Every structure is written in structure tokens, then in C-alpha cells.
């Protein structure tokens, strides 16, 4: 367990710089999100490794949004990996979080996890502990790209056929903060159908991941049908990068071509 992280958080708490640290706690043999308010609790801090590296990660930024809605004047620290840091940047731009109220506690991912994720940047710039890993070249998108267009559609439709419409991909997504969700729009997606409209349902969600998806992979991990959602959204990111030159969450100031909210 990271001493550096514990000590940094303890100091922030003791000095009253933060109201709490949103991280993970290990309790009763399980890992779960927790707001650490008392330095004593840090004894049970977890970094989200249970059976394998990073297999017990949770959408902490999503919880942070809820905390900051309830306590807009408080400052919180939050555990972030490379993907979470990209998420924070976009959430600042979308005005879902206030940058001056968030202290990121950065954790780099081990090579094993970076490889499993095919992560382009498996560490946050605000790196407090853990490795500053290398970019991993992706194979999954390349494999789909190698298919001709008909085979590609057949591949995705067969994957989407398993969908049970649990909405877990949306529910766990730290970047899905809309009050109204297009997936519930009856004019686009018939309700009550399993599998939901194929491929419309998943393509609607994929389009809405433009400029949002920070490639954390929580959606794929939450999918009861093991649909390779991460590959789908990585492809979306590839298109946005090629067509618009925008890479989600990599810059602090530049907004995605789809973020039209003006900061006043």
C-alpha cells in the first residue's frame, strides 16, 4: 500500500485543506468507494487492486460530482489514475466540477493494467505514486479496422445481440452526467425491447461518447454481456482525433468540438 499517498492525504486532512478524500476502502474482504474524513481510516485505504491490478476501480469522479453538488463550497481530494485525470479535465470544462475545489491524488498504473487497458497514457500528470508507464499500442481497434465494412457491421451486431439493456455502461460512466438521456428517448429507441434496437442503441451511445470518453474501461467491466464497448469507444476517439484533432482529456484549456458551453 502506498505510503506516499497515505501520508499526503493524512497531511491534507490534518491541516484542514480538504473536507475529505474520496478513494477506496477495503472492508470485510471487499473494496468499495469511501470518503475518508478521519486520518485513522487510512489504515484501510485500497488502491483498487483486489485479485488483479486495478480490478476494483470505481467511478470516483461520478461520486465526486454528487458530493460537490451537495457541498459546493468544500474542497475534496480524489484518487486519480491517468484516465480519471483526463476525466477531471473534461468535467472541469463541462462545468460539472470546479477545478479549484479538487485536489487530485495521482496514481500511475502498473504495466499489467496498462496493457490490459491498451492505455495511451497510463499515468496522471499529477503523479504522486506508481509508475510513469509507457503508452501501449492498441490491437483491439486495429483488429476491427482490419475487417471489411460488412464484416465489421456483422461483428458489432452479433456483439450487440447479447445486450440485456441493463444500462450499466451509462450508469457507471463517470462522464455521463446529462439530466436527460438520449437512450431513454422513445423516438430513437423503442422501450421494452431486448436486445434494444440493434445497432441503434449502442451507436447512439457511442456518438454521445464523442469528446466525453476518457477510456477508463469501466463500461466494459460493467457489461453483463461482455460486449467490447471499450473497443467501440476507442474507435470513436480515433475518429474524433483524426477528423477534429481533438484528444479527450489531454489538455486543460482546449474544448472538445462538441462542447459549446461558454464559461462566464
Amino acid at each position, binding site marked *: 500500500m502506498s505510503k506516499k499517498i497515505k501520508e499526503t492525504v493524512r497531511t491534507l486532512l490534518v491541516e484542514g485543506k480538504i473536507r475529505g478524500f474520496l478513494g477506496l476502502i477495503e472492508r*470485510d*474482504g471487499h473494496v468499495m468507494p469511501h470518503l475518508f474524513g478521519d486520518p485513522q481510516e487510512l489504515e484501510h485505504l485500497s488502491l483498487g487492486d483486489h485479485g488483479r491490478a486495478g480490478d476494483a476501480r470505481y467511478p470516483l469522479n461520478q461520486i465526486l460530482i454528487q458530493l460537490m453538488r451537495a457541498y459546493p463550497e468544500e474542497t475534496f481530494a480524489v484518487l486519480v489514475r491517468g484516465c480519471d485525470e483526463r476525466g477531471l479535465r473534461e468535467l472541469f470544462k463541462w462545468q460539472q466540477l470546479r477545478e479549484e475545489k479538487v485536489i487530485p491524488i495521482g496514481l500511475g498504473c502498473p504495466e499489467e493494467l496498462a496493457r490490459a487497458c491498451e492505455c495511451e497514457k497510463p499515468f496522471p500528470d499529477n503523479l504522486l505514486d506508481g509508475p510513469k508507464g509507457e503508452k501501449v499500442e492498441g490491437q483491439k481497434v486495429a483488429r476491427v479496422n482490419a475487417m471489411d465494412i460488412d464484416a465489421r457491421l456483422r461483428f458489432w451486431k452479433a456483439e450487440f445481440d447479447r445486450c440485456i439493456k*441493463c444500462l450499466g455502461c451509462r450508469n457507471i460512466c463517470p462522464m455521463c452526467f446529462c439530466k436527460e438521456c438520449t437512450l*431513454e428517448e422513445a423516438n430513437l429507441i423503442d422501450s*421494452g425491447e*431486448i436486445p434494444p434496437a440493434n445497432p441503434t442503441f449502442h451507436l447512439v451511445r457511442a456518438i454521445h461518447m464523442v469528446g466525453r470518453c476518457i477510456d477508463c474501461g469501466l463500461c466494459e467491466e460493467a457489461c453483463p454481456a461482455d460486449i467490447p464497448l471499450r473497443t467501440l469507444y476507442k474507435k470513436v476517439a480515433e475518429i474524433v482525433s483524426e477528423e477534429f484533432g481533438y484528444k479527450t482529456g489531454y489538455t486543460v484549456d482546449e474544448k472538445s468540438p462538441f462542447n459549446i458551453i461558454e464559461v462566464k
Partner: protein
Amino acid sequence: MTNSIEEIESADCILIFGSNTSIAHPLIATRVFRAKARGAKVIVADPRKIPIVLQSDLHLQHRLGTDVALINGLMHIILKNGWERKAFISERTENLEEFRKVVEKYSPDRVSEITGVPVKDLETAAQYYAKAERGSILYTMGITQHTTGVDNVKSLANLSMLTGNIGRESTGVNPLRGQNNVQGACDMGGLPNVYSGYQPVTDQAVRQKFEEAWRAELSARVGLTATEMFPAALEGRVKAMVILGENPVLSDADSHHVEKALEALDFLLVIDIFNTPTSDLAHVVLAGASFAEKEGTFTNTERRVQMVRKAIEPPGDARVDWRIIQELSNRLGYSMDYDSPRAVMEEIARVTPSYAGIRYDRLQGDGLQWPCPSTDHPGTKFLHQGKFTRGKGLFSAIEYKPPAEVADEAYPFQLTTGRIHVHYHTGTMTRNSPSLEREVNECLLEINPEDARELGIGEGDRVLVSSRRGSVSTRVKLTETEKRGTVFMPFHFFESRANILTNPMFDPVAKIPEFKVCAVKIEKMETGSAR
């Protein structure tokens, strides 16, 4: 389940029989998807073209209620080809010859005629399952909710024994239990013939043990099943009922009959977290607590005892149910003085051999699967390893019997009932969940488009569905999920109570009603004549 949920992933053939797995047990469907991705053969035997059929190698779309014929047909083919596991049969089973005499009568042609399944598909299915190294059977109420429910289950047991697909990892006969703690309610003696751990009330030594443990005189007479309680109430033999967290007005067959029975009672006490059509008939309603507001344990379908942890306080003056029961008992003059659910579990472990090793301290982490006979026992992943509970596995010779009520001229369609993905049982919980209610907020009768066309019914039209027991108004959905002659209704909706229509005729042994088949007629209603 004889085996565990995770084991399904490693099966080589999965036979899904009367289970709408991806709708009713989605996280078990996950394991089926994974097995399929590994190359397992998936066979779905179901009268409806349910979503998991899309993931199957073969769909046996047999007629409602022809399960025994279908299974006998598969076994006939297995025996004819010599695909049975002879070593397993001679070592671990008995009565094969009697059984063979009956199965011999179920030739593929005859079975195809009864079930409507093509001979070729029968042969393919028999081959897939019998030749699999690890064959797993999953079933639910599509097997049990018939007047031949016990015959159906025994037939699946025959099939697994014949092919040696039991008592090993990733095999077995696996009932997927429909309610979060229906396994636990059975384990705890919520049944009229047994105390906790299936210890018979008619066994004198067992009764004596409980009389000593509970310091009370106990009845040796087997009690009434749920399906017998309502007729008994109408006949005046039952005068009072206590109903904890159930809604029989919606959930039981022949709903009008249940309502009349409850109205005939001198006293009805209901404990629930919401008002329901059942609590509406009560003399007293006590406000209980939801799972989020109390501590305790649930036992899942793979016999895994897991912790339920208190997260919040009950709303208003609502109280946790174990305290309500304790206070009622004390007022009835029988003292209960538990300080916590943990103390109750300690007593359960003392009197229940299969739970003897279960302690709250041991349930953190992954929980424990019973049988767990001692505090150093790790729990049991799969049953019947090396030996069956009764010693040798008994082959039962079972003849096919048609459902109690089949379609005829007056009632030309066969109705079957079940769940849809966003709702659950009588909807008490799901219909109070806005996001689920937004997805589907009304009953839709599913009918084959050809049948609808002949009746002059279009998508969304309102119809009156009638059986010999009553009529229900509902809108329709045209879908290829149903084959011609069969219609489907979910039973979640009080506005269109499917169980007004269902047949209360029950299996003579298990006393389970035939929810899955009854005969109905369908008439288009004029706009505005909804009732």
C-alpha cells in the same frame, strides 16, 4: 442448484430448459454468454423465442406443457445410439431397465408429433448434450409451474444421470431460483412439512429436538401449502392469516378466488413495505423495512449465504421485520428475546445441520455455500459428488401427460405467463422505481402477428383476454417471440392481472399451480370500452 454459478462458464454444453435466463436471471446469462464464447453448445428448449435463443446453437420450440415427451425423446435417442455413460449408470444409479421400457415408447417421430420439434433437431440436441464432457442443465418455472412439474424435474434428473452429467464440476441439474431469498425461505423451514434444513415435522426425533430447543409443544401434523390455504379459507377451515412481504392477490393463480378467500377471513395481518392489492384487504398492516434498512442474510440460488447489511434507517415509524415478528410473538405469549440477527443465526446454526458452520464472522468476503456442517468446513461448491443424498440415483419411469387445460374451440389460444426485463414478480418494488416504470408501464399481451391478423388486431390494440376463470383487458404487442396459437402475458401488472386467467390446478406432489399453460380466448375491444 446442484452446482455453482461460476461453473456454468466452463460447461461444454448448456441445456436451458424453461428459463428466460437473460430476462429473469441476467447475471447467470452472463456465464452462458461466456461459455458460448469459449465454444460451448447452447441449446434452448422453450415454447417462446426468448432473447437467449439468439445466443443458442439450437432452439427446441416445443409446445407448452410437452416437456416430459421432449426429454423422453432426447433420452430415447441417447439410448438408441449408445451415448449413455454406462460406468456412471452401473456405479451410481438404479432402475434403468424400468425406465428404459417407458423411454423406448418415445420414438423421435412420436415425440416430434407431440412437441412440434423436428426430428433432426431432437437428434442434434441429444448428441450435443450426451457427448459433452461437461453438460449443464439450467431450468426455472417453465419446468416447474405445470401440473406435471415434478415429472418434468425428475425427467431432467433422468437425463443428467443417463449421461453422467451430475456430481462433477460444470454439470448438474440447476434450478435458477426466482426470488432473492426463496432458497433461504425454504432452508429456514418456511414450508408446511419441514423445520429449518428440511428436517421433517413428522419425524419424532426431529420434533423432539425442536421442542427442546424452542421449549414448546409442536404439532406433528403437516400444514397447508400456500395453494391449499386459500380454498381452506373459503371453506372456513382457515380463519386468520399472517402474510409477510407477499402479494398473493397478484402472484397466485386464479386471482379472483384468492381475493374471495382473503375477504372471507376473520382476520388478516399483512407486513409489507408498500400497500399492495393484498394489504388492501387486511385488518392490520404493519410497516416493515426494506433490505437496505436491516441486517441479515440471504441465500442465493447456488446455496450461497451472503450478508445483508444495514445502510440506512427505515422511513418514518417503519420497523425491521425481525423485531416486528419478535414483538408479535411476545404478545402472543411466546417469549423471543434476540438482540440481533446475528444471535438468530447462532440459533439457526445450532438446530440446522446444513447451516451448522455458518457464522456472521465467516460470511464476510464471499459468503458460504451450504451444506456447511461445521465452523471449519469451507462450504460446498457442488452437490452429489461420489454419492447421491439417497445413495443410488433413481431413474424414474415417467409417461407424458398433457396440461390440465388445453386449447379448444371456446378458448382457442394457450396462454403462458412470465416476467419482463424491467419488472419483477407483482411489481411492488419495480413499479415504485421510476426508471423501470418509464421503460415499461403497462401489460402487453404478446401474440404472433399472423394470429393477430386473423383476429383483426393491430399493434397496441386493446383486447379482452378471457379464460374459464375470468377476463382481463390489456393492449397487445405483435411479436415473433410467440409461435402461432400461443400468447404470453407478464404477471406484474395489477391493471391487467394475468393471474385472473391462470389455472389453479396444481401438481399433485409439489402443489405448484399450472401458471405456464391455460386456455384463453382473445377479443378485440372497441376504443373506449376498456374495463
